[in-house]
């Protein structure tokens, strides 16, 4: 078995696609309608397009427990997932310039530097630079 895809719940797929491609520079990979206005919608990192796909899953809209779980994580400030970067400070400054809001500014924590931003689709996302 291989890990090829991970998913993240989003409250609006179109808005998520906009954020993940325009702000994070991810690239749309698969976009297939699956009924009721939902899509099987995946993106990949622009820097590693053969890497794992990220499924922008409309679960909070269709399955109430996901909405509750997502909100609980968000309210506690807990990132739903994390992405790696080679320079957390530089990425933080780039995203700030694009209007992205951060709940944790670049912070060294042992052998990593982390920062946490709001993806505007119901999630906090952590970026991490391994030091």
């Amino acid at each position, binding site marked *: 078995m291989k890990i090829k895809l991970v998913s993240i719940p989003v409250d609006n797929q179109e808005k998520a696609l906009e954020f993940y491609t325009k702000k994070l520079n991810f690239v749309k990979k698969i976009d297939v309608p699956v009924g009721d206005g939902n899509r099987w919608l995946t993106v990949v990192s622009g820097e590693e397009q053969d890497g794992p796909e990220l499924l922008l899953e409309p679960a909070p809209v269709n399955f109430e427990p996901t909405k509750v779980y997502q909100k609980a994580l968000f309210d*506690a*400030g807990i990132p739903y997932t994390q992405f790696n970067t080679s320079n957390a400070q530089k990425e933080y400054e780039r995203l700030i310039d694009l209007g992205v809001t951060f*709940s944790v500014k670049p912070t060294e*924590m042992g*052998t990593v530097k982390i920062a946490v931003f709001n993806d505007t689709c119901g999630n906090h996302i952590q970026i991490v630079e391994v*030091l």
Partner: protein
Amino acid sequence: MSFYNKEILRIKEDCYSNQWQLDTVIGLRNYINNNFSEKLNLDLFSRIRFVSKYHLLRLFKRYYGQTPNQYLINKRIEKAKEYIKDGLSISDTCHEVGFESLSSFNSLFKRKTGFTPRAYQKSNFR
């Protein structure tokens, strides 16, 4: 302050308060990143960081979750993928990333990526 912000402070205090240890392992990781194509071993690392080799091994594993040698192998395979994508031959790639034996390079590459270097090279020309 959110729950997560408090957790960050707690973890920093509980797990990452020894700056000397952090400087030691971060310095070693940087050294490996900059010298992965050279002949590297624990004795050398120990001399560079002025720490006994078994203590250094334990510290690196404690903070990075893998031994310096495991980290070095992963680094070399990651760089080998880049070199092959850039068009370098398999034998030149093997040499450039610091492996002495082509057969051990082949088998490690296969174990780490799921492809032999040759198959990986072909898949990038499709």
